[in-house]
């Protein structure tokens, strides 16, 4: 909400750092993909433009996640500081209140490079944007955002059970979420692909949707349409994470004063 936005503008220097650093990081990743794909001509059957589509999609869903669900990055902090007291006193769904309190407009910094890269890839790939393709894209964006959010939610909600620090949790989770969506899953060994598909379903954030749009095969020959699958997996994973969050909230200890 407004409160969260305002406090962002109170730290202009920090904002400036993000404005410079985040796009640099995003375009840097693309450059790396470019270098790799020209050196080895093709990795795992991906063309450079296919990779750009894949990579852009990953960043856009990350941006959407940061804009709408930034609160989940702060779960442990809020637990340690007893901030859920206030939320639990409102006659509303506590997760909803938790989320809208840190609605984060500053996420545009994250999403903009993603939109540029994604648009560039779409133009180069000459994709046919018929109604079905647009619906698929929407499904994929929602699904991917929900998967990303679910991962952070689960990691954060561990804070209800044991004292954890935001900085550490977020570093690890962000590292995982970034690196597993910076390169397509099919370059990893089979075992890792299994984990990143069925346990932590990051493969559905961008690898499988991009393969669907490119008309490529996937490792597990999943029978359902991959874009639709992303939406379903996203919803299921998010509900699972939500259940865990609610379960954690039942163990919320508040703070002694």
């Amino acid at each position, binding site marked *: 909400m*407004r*409160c969260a936005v*305002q*406090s962002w503008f109170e730290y202009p220097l920090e904002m400036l750092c993000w404005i410079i650093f985040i796009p640099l990081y995003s375009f840097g990743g693309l450059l790396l993909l470019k270098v790799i794909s020209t050196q080895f001509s093709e990795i795992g059957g991906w063309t450079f433009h296919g990779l750009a589509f894949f990579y852009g999609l990953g960043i856009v869903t990350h941006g959407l996640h940061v804009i709408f669900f930034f609160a989940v990055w702060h779960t442990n902090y809020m637990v340690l500081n*007893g901030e*859920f*007291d*206030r939320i*639990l*006193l*409102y*006659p*509303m*769904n506590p997760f909803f209140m938790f989320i809208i309190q840190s609605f984060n407009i500053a996420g545009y910094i994250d999403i903009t490079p993603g939109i540029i890269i994604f648009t560039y890839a779409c133009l180069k790939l000459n994709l046919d944007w018929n109604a079905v393709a647009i619906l698929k894209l929407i499904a994929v964006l929602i699904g991917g955002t929900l998967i990303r959010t679910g991962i952070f939610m689960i990691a954060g909600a561990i804070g209800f059970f044991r*004292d954890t620090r935001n900085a550490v949790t977020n570093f690890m989770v962000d590292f995982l979420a970034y690196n597993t969506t910076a390169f397509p899953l099919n370059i990893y060994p089979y075992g890792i692909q299994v984990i990143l598909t069925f346990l932590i379903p990051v493969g559905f954030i961008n690898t499988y949707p991009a393969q669907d749009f490119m008309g490529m095969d996937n490792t597990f020959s999943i029978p359902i349409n991959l874009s639709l699958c992303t939406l379903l997996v996203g919803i299921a994973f998010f509900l699972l994470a939500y259940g865990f969050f609610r379960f954690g909230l*039942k*163990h*919320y*200890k*508040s703070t*002694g*004063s």
Partner: protein
Amino acid sequence: MSIIKAVHLRKRFIVKKKEPGLKGALKGIFAPKKIIINALDDVSFSMKKGEIIGLIGPNGAGKSTTIKILTGILQPLSGEVEVMGLNPQKKRAEVVSRIGVVFGQRSQLYWDIRLGESFELFRRIYRIPDEEYNANLELMDSLLGIRRLIDIPVRQLSLGQRMRGEIVSAVLHSPDILFLDEPTIGLDIQAKRNIRKFIREINQKKKTTIILTTHDLGDVQELCPRLVVINKGKIIEDGALDAIVHRLAPERILQIDTDKVKKDFTYPHCKMIKCEENKMWISFNRENVSASKLIAALSAEVRINDLQVKEPDIEDAIEQIYGEG
């Protein structure tokens, strides 16, 4: 019919004990030493609609924990809770829509926005009808002068002003029950008076049921006919304020400023507890001695420049009788 019912409530906190030094830190990671705190150890009490009770006890006694369980923030380890006939853990949203809560030690307001904007937010969250909202704001303005503060960002309010804001934000939706956890902490006497007046009025005008915790015996003496005393998670007294104060802390202290003290002053049932250059402290039992008679007797012997009758510290008394908290 009780509006609040707590039966055999228990609550336990497990905390890791931190040991000093590097070795302690390592041990903390691999084999943390856990201690169990029995914050509530079989707490039962009930309240009737429209009642005001003072929930008192030393620091760490379990007052806030009791309130957090009654308001649905915490889950009890065991026992039963009913607030307006509902279980606040199972029907949390329904219960909290009909109660108001103020924690003096922590803010419910948003620091970055104006007080009035916080109120607007609550109006939407609680879906308060316009008429009710305006009437409540009007009443609060007459009791706490809240209109003057409405355009100020919360971070710029003084503690007393902020507490007024906290209280108003807790009653905008006309709650049936008001939980006030140390609402007068750190306030000066004038601010305390305002808040006491507010509590009395809202209880009389709107029949609001009120639970008040405080360290100030003055608060409860002015407001609460009934006292519930808690210590180490156990309820040790529950009854009429006068009876409890008389039993736990019957001694009051008369402090006299004088030009020349009289060390050997005596009076039946009184005790000289301290004597300085030009000050005397005499303790007396309120049951057998009236303050005015004692003062009259004293003024016959010394010249009294100033005097003060001090109420006993009930928390000290609790600790003396029931052991340290």
